């Protein structure tokens, strides 16, 4: 379990990093917190010729907030993001999702950008990013800066819309509507493990009714997908309870969960239904506390 041979560079500027990445022609990799990449090297599942660590590049880490939402630098560690009161206030769903990522020791190294770029189908942050309508800023020498909405970013297991020469520099999380409540729930084998099933849910509430809902699940497919009311084909204006039950069944019918050592496909399907219902119900209840109950 020793790493295979590779070269290592820690450039001082993003431009230099982008040059190295482009010159690597797909054989170079960005090293962020290393919490996913290093284990992959140790198991010799990845063999990049060059690792480019960006920790010396100024300006890639940090949380900013303006009225329209949060901007989180890609190299912000998961722990710094989690402990930032602005994240907790402006995006309770992201905060809740961060708390489920590994353990504090992992989060003190792992980065928000790294988790999204790694695109583990069981990871929390991709699912949260989808429900929150997050956008990723990507930079490359060849194409300059482009913005990729989260719903176009995740293409498959460990596969994203990034080109080999692109670096994610920032994640933007728009402020949620004030009548929205959210909830992240998951079941894992142990606290801190990747989820067998995780559910990110957001509900926009008007009085006793559900105006809108958005869901994304982790651990149940090749990638998290955004599921809206339309995509779930939820009909009518039934009571929230009936709607959540419908949503749970609809999710369970739509997914093709994997089978592994920790859970059968049937178990994951079952959990998806249970957790979807629970997460939606909690999100709905929280929306009332946000003032959603009044703003019918």
């Amino acid at each position, binding site marked *: *379990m*020793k*790493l*295979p*041979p590779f070269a290592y560079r820690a450039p001082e500027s993003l431009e230099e990093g982008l040059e190295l990445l482009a010159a690597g022609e797909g054989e170079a990799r960005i090293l962020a917190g290393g919490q996913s990449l290093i284990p992959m090297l140790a*198991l*010799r599942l990845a063999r990049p010729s060059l690792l480019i660590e960006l920790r010396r590049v100024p300006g890639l880490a940090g949380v900013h907030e303006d009225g329209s939402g949060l901007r989180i630098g890609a190299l912000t560690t998961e722990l710094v993001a989690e402990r930032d009161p602005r994240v907790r206030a402006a995006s309770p769903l992201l905060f809740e999702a961060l708390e489920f990522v590994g353990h504090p020791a992992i989060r003190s190294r792992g980065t928000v950008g790294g988790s999204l770029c790694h695109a583990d189908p069981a990871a929390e942050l991709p699912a949260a990013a989808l429900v929150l309508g997050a956008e990723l800023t990507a930079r490359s020498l060849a194409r300059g800066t482009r913005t990729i909405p989260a719903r176009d970013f995740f293409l498959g297991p460990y596969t994203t819309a990034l080109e080999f020469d692109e670096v994610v520099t920032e994640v933007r999380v728009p402020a949620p509507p004030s009548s929205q409540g959210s909830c992240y729930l998951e*079941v894992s*084998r*142990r*606290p*801190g*493990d*990747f989820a*067998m099933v995780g559910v990110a849910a957001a509900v926009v509430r008007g009085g006793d009714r559900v105006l809108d809902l958005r869901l994304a699940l982790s651990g149940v497919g090749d990638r998290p997908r955004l599921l809206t009311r339309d995509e779930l084909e939820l009909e009518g204006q039934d009571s929230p309870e009936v709607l959540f039950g419908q949503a749970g069944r609809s999710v369970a019918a739509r997914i093709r969960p994997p089978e592994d*050592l*920790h*859970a*059968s496909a*049937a*178990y994951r*399907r*079952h*959990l998806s239904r*249970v*957790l979807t219902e629970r997460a939606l119900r909690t999100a709905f209840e929280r929306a009332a506390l946000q003032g959603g109950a009044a703003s019918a």
Partner: protein
Amino acid sequence: MRPRVPAERYTGASVRRVEDERLLTGRGTFVADAHLPGMLHAAFHRSPLPHARIVAVNTEAARRAPGVVAVFDGAEMTQMASPVAALGAAPGSGGPVSFGILAMDKVRLVGDPVALVVAESRALAEDACELIVVEYEELAPVVTVEQALDPSLPAIFEELGGNRLFGPEVKVFGDVDGAFARADRVVRASIHQHRHQNVPMEGRAILASFDASSGQLLVRASTQGVNTTRQMLAQQLRMPLDRVRVVAEDVGGSFGLKFGASREEAACCAASRALGQPVRWVEDRWENLTVSGQAREESFEVEAAVTASGLILGLRVQMVIDSGAYPGFAPLVVDIVREMIPGPYRLGALSFSSSGVVTNKASYVAYRGPWAAETFVRERIVDLVAQELGISALEVRLRNLATRDEPPLRMVTGPSLAGITARESLLRAAEIVDLARFQERQLRLRDEGRYLGVGFATYIEPAPGPRQEGGEGNTEQVRVELDRDGLLLVHTAQMPHGQSHRTTLAQVAADEFGARLEQVRVMVGDSQQTPEGFGTGGSRFAAMAGGAALHGARRLRGKVLEAAAQILDLAPTDLDIWRGELVGPGVPGGGLPLAELISRIDLAARSGQLPPGVDVDLTATEDFDGGESGWSGGTHCCVVEVDPDTGLVRILRYLVVEDCGDLINPAVVDGQIRGGVAQGVGAVLLERSAYDPEGQYLSATLMDYLLPTALDVPHIEIEHLSPVRLDPDVNFRGVGEGGMIAAPPTICNAIADALSPFGAKVLEQHLPPARILELIGATSA
């Protein structure tokens, strides 16, 4: 000697561990911390296939790789060393099977070592391993017991003529047919214990250093006993015993894995001898999980003859053990399971059939409480009997447990049950958990859709167990010696790897001799000094080594007092050793420090001032068999809540009521219990050594083999019962294995109780959430 009050004794107090400061501040020295000039590093090229014939091994490219010093394949290694069966491989354990230190003609499991690369660093050695090309002819893998018994599948060892290793061997105790004839009912169950394994923090590791000029092999080992390692290495390397010295410093856990020397460790010694340079191998986690060894995979067909009132008259048991690829420890396990299955119960009749098979999985090794299956099967059967008869499980246990005043106080398989306190422990556990109140609450919460359950398991642990016929010579040897600095050196063959021996043995010796704790040094881990004894295992430490140290210190104290009396011209009975000084009326200055006393004895002896017959050899060697000390034991009780929507199990309460005799160090005892319970929690809820149907190993990282963390282990309440003291001097008993033996059935019984409204029948030990939902019928199996 002035009678000591408890407050003046180290024994019985939670004396702070002398090991702690060094280990907790990172100053321990494990094999990975050991370096020698010119040291090389080993890595193994291992089989990716579970079962295949080796057609060709090409090591050319690896030999030319950067930093590589040597590569050895199976054929070359055979010239250098030959394997011996693992410890415990009894005669009849599959007869003579032949295999190489490295695989030669065949590979028999994923991870089987095929070639050894020695290079300037472990990373370079691993790089070179990837360049080795092996041509295989794949054979059908034998993964399950059913497949092992299928004659159409290829034999893993051709000389066995199949994959049955031994058995079925049937032994009968008592009137089994009579018991079944008298029974009102027969309760039947197929009970399975799943494969899981030892995962010590430090895996297997060795630093072998052969000195060509003296012909000596010096080995720095990670082992449970240097003598056994030395013997097995000498045998495998075909070297005279006196040419091999084995030294061990800190050992980062083992749980039964590190007895003797593995094939890989022997290969590293052979390589060092061939190259004349030190070779170090520190197994990585993948190797540890995949090939070091696994345990516990055993299945049982059980029939219990019971009366309507819940008396268990007799058992018929058929046990099959899956021994994995290379035969070793399994036959020994079967013998202990058979002997121990009656436990502390008055079971009158037992028929026990046992067989073993080989499969293309990791070899069976000892794991903390190797015979634990008997407790699991028995305690599960007791609950199943209760369930079928509609009586409480507590009632069935009480009806069947042996009582000390009711003869014969003896298991139907032979061993005496003298001194057991099983019944007291059960009653006390039921009292603490307040069973009646709990059951009210349980019923109330069920109406709210919440499912709580309570489970008990009662066990005994041979620690070391009663004296048995033919057991003569089964002793621990301790040599106690006073050095010229006035230090009391206590030499033992015990090899601490987490058990705190350096503290607890010192407590016993210090009290008995009259020394201060700081004056005692527990000397372990050097085959040049270590007394006879196979090492740490089988809960032999407290009663056997502790007892030997006690008697040794006592005898040495007598010698010292005798000599001192001569020198000072006083009566020995007027003298005492207290807090490391000779004291008594007439002793100059009111007290003579030990170092000074020793130099005076030495001077007197050398100048002929002592009368003949005064023994001035200030050492005492004692062998002790544990005395009348016999069983540890107790009852565990667990309360769980099962979420029927997710299958998650939460342990709400965990309680241990136990008796391991007199406690040498209560904090250490509690630590042993907690560690064992943690492993039991792991076994039931998390840990499984899983193979896919093709024989590929699925649990090869710690993201797949799930160990319990601090967040998964509940608070464990512990109460110690006051013991029945049968020995005049030594009433400490071992406590290393009980936690691990009793926890799995306790937790499974609690889960089964919680699931009883669903009509679920729990017949296995591993109950992850996905399985719980299958059991209650929420998802299909």
